[in-house]
């Protein structure tokens, strides 16, 4: 049976819909949700719950600066974020990730909020946002709350949104001092590829080549993004050399818990994700 699609223009309209229609499906670009709905068997009878599209709510779009923080509102598309000069200047790791996400048409439709709320282990925006220490803001009709992205993501496909809440925006501090922004994704092809493994890295490298500060995050090799302070601590204060990285590699291997799927085996994922650390050598003399 045909499905109803509601297209609110303002947040107030949205809250009203929430009030009237507790059973509904939210979506922004629909690039995850519509794929999921399509794969579900049709309902034998009765109308399926309505879809509520967030894409046309202006209040959920755009990138703003406030007190040294940048807020990317949830329904901003990947293309818009990629083009944004502030993001490009302060968070090149995010720009890099987005240039590898899906394809131009997916980036034109898909949103950062959708990517986060899908909470896929392979969600590409999650690793850079973890390294950047991003927070998220959830809002409901009468309140808002801020929490670290790490605590928002509960597990594969699961986020800490309560009934009546939406993801409003992502907050990132501007004043970090990392001078190396790195991201690499291993997929089955170069575009439209779901990550087999990925790694984001932020490094503050001294003029002498010492790692003064480092943040690392791996995607697609654990139920959620994999991070490890042990590894970061082991590398901090050390020179960026092949030996130093190789010494840390066993720690990486231990920090991951990948699975087998149609794209790759767990064993391959683990070894490749570990190897990705060596790619940081390219910045040695940078």
């Amino acid at each position, binding site marked *: *049976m*045909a499905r109803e699609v509601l297209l609110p223009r303002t947040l107030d309209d949205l809250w009203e819909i929430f009030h009237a229609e507790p059973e509904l499906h939210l979506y922004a670009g629909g690039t995850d949700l519509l*794929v999921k709905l399509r794969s579900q*068997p*049709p309902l*034998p*009878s009765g109308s399926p719950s309505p879809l509520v599209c967030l894409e046309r709510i202006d209040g959920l779009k755009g990138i703003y600066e406030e007190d040294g923080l940048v807020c990317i509102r949830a329904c901003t598309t990947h293309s818009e974020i990629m083009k944004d000069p502030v993001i490009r200047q302060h968070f090149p790791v995010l720009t890099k990730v987005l240039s590898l996400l899906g*394809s131009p048409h997916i980036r034109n439709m898909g949103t950062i909020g959708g990517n986060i709320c899908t909470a896929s282990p392979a969600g590409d925006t999650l690793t850079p946002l973890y390294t950047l220490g991003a927070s998220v803001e959830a809002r409901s009709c009468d309140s808002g709350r801020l929490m670290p992205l790490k605590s928002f993501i509960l597990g594969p496909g699961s986020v800490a949104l309560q009934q009546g809440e939406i993801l409003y925006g992502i907050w990132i501090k501007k004043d970090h001092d990392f001078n190396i922004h790195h991201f690499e994704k*291993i997929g*089955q*092809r*170069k*575009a*439209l590829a*779901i990550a*087999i493994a990925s790694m984001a890295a932020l490094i503050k490298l001294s003029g002498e080549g010492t790692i003064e500060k480092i943040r690392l995050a791996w995607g697609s090799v654990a139920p959620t993004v994999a991070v490890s302070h042990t590894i970061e601590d082991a590398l901090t204060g050390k020179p960026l050399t092949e030996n130093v990285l190789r010494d840390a590699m066993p720690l990486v291997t231990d920090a991951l818990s990948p699975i087998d799927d*149609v*794209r*790759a*085996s767990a064993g*391959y994922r683990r*070894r*490749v994700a570990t*190897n*990705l650390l*060596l*790619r940081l*050598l*390219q910045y040695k003399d940078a």
Partner: protein
Amino acid sequence: MKRGKQVPFRIGTTTPRCDACTKVTGQEKYAADYYGDHFFWAGVKRAGTPHGKLLKVNTEDAKRLKGVVAVLTSEDVAGSNRVGIIRGDQPVLADKKICYAGDPLALVIAENKEALQAAVGFITFDHEPLPGVFDVEEALKKGAPLVHEDSPEGNLLRLVSVETGKGASAFDECDVIVEGVFQTPFQEHAYLETEAGWAYLDDSEQLVVVTTTQTPFRDRNEMAPALGIDVEKIRVIVPYLGGAFGGKDGIAIQCLLGLAALHTGGVPVKMWWGREESFLASTKRLSARMRYRLGVKRDGTFHALECRAYFDTGAYAGLGETVMTLGLEHAGSAYRIPNVSIEGSCVYTNNTVGGPFRGFGVTQVTAAMEQVIDMAAQRLSIDPLAIRRSNALEKGDKNCIGVTLTHSTGIKKCLAALSEHPLWREKEGWKMKAEQFKKRGVGIACMAHAMGYPAVVPDFANAKIEFTGEGRFRIYAGIVDMGQGNTSTYAHIAGAMLGQDTSVFELVQPDTERTLPSGSSSASRTTYVYGNALIIAVEDLKKRILDKALHLFCSAQAEELMLVPGGIRHREGKKKVSLRKVAGLFDEPERTCTAHFRSPAATEMLDRIYLGPHIIFSYAAHLSYVEIDMLTGCAEVIGYLAVTDAGNVINPQAYEQQIQGGIAQGIGFALSEDYKVANGHTDTNNLATYIIPTAMDVPDMMSVAVDNVEETGPFGMKGIGEISISGPVPAIANAVADACGIRIGRNPITAENIFQALQKQDDQEKPR
């Protein structure tokens, strides 16, 4: 739309294809674009289980749903309920057995898509599961479950063997023997346009089916007995296809559509498979396992070849045995080999359904042969190009099945051109420039590809061209244009002969009522065979036009007149008469010229191989630059060159499109495409899991056409549609071996496969 002055078509000069504009602007109407004010939707309930005895299909619940018009089972099929051009072993709707997961059990007709989907979900069936066979060699063992209990040789559909010279005993005379096992997977065609169609009974009770097929005339002949209707009562219309690559060669959607239209009480019915259904129920390139042994003399001369091949045709015969046979005919690629022992088994399994796919068996064997050659070259420390040059076939030589080559044979020219190309000359420098954690390699491969049907299958076309009352030319293309642009090339040929440009041509796509039977759109034959017929018809028409025009030029001879864009001119004088004016002088029956052409075929050695040998081949030599990421195993194709002998070039752009398309599809086969079937079920059932290359995965491809003329070809051309797909697997595999010394023996050569092989190599090299 205003355009510059139109230039007449010229042989050898690029002209954009006639269908380009209507396709990119969305005006071209494909089979899925038919709708009406009142029509029904049809859809299929499929088995979803690979092997079983079908006891009962329960349709009552589905029939009761609102909006459901009819639910049909095999009992509603009035005819034989069997299709399959060679064996007739495939049911329209399963009756006794389920032989693979895609088998259709019931056909639903509904008022709308939602009711259709719901009804399909309500159909259940009772069956007795049977153990399945999923491996070709297991299938041939005694006691293996039988896919078709009534098949005379059990699961062996066909055994083909060829022996020449001393056969395998010649290995005793060889200095070096190399061997290997090579495997290629099922490949999905993944055409943009999934199977679709529109069917109805017209006022005269004729069944009209507008659909996606490469074989309209053959389909009609298959549909009639299967559905129990007179062949004259079926009309098949085929618009441009959105890709086919062999996957629409034969019955897939046609009978289901036809059957539905017979049960709607005259209402038109539409069917349109989704991507998952297309993956499940369409044919695949037959997977193959090949044991190869090549014996070589110390100086690099190929002396003996042994090939033991198993091709998996899946649940039904289709054209599987001919696919394998064409492969075996090319088992020795493009070389002289005096002693061969070739044997292939085409085997039934419960995996999927095998069928034609661009390359038709040749892609599989070429992958194996061209790799053992590199292995031999390495053992003998001979350059891989040099060893190929010294063994390459020449006109007058016997090919690997012992048939003497009497037509154009340009493989040596291809190799010569490759050797002079900058990509070959500069390869060592390029390899040295690999960055940290990267290794680079260069690989080459040769290939041959036969054109047309095997000797005992008549290969003919009937061209038809009409000079319309408006002075335009209407070409009735009897061969489907599945996207390769053959019908556009028909206009190119006629235009070049008639001195006309694109604007005066109309192309009628195949329609069994309007166009003439000309065989399938397959076998790299479409331009060769129809083009030859068309040339005869156009010559006839041209003569008629000039003769008529004489009436308008007093005191002239026909030889003094010439056709110019839009009209006719006297060679010396200024006078020009429009085509429209000349057209006015024609009587209706004079407007149309038809001609028949039958391709030359072997007359000797017809029993050398099943259905007889081919005699005209295209040739090519490919080169690939590949970079391996040692940290991940990813292989990236950085550069690619194809040097081709497909005779003379009619439209360079169309030629290059075929070369590039074949290479891209071949790169997919080499690196990522893998239709995985485990115990009869697939995990790669859509485009998210079945990985075809994107534009980002395909490098710049260079195409060089060598100067060679096929005397029997229209303007000296021969087939170009398939050959280039056979190069990438071996050229890339050889490059991977060159880069890092590993040979995986099966494609796709995924990052994970390379990574594992590197690991193994590492472990072996480690001192204990």
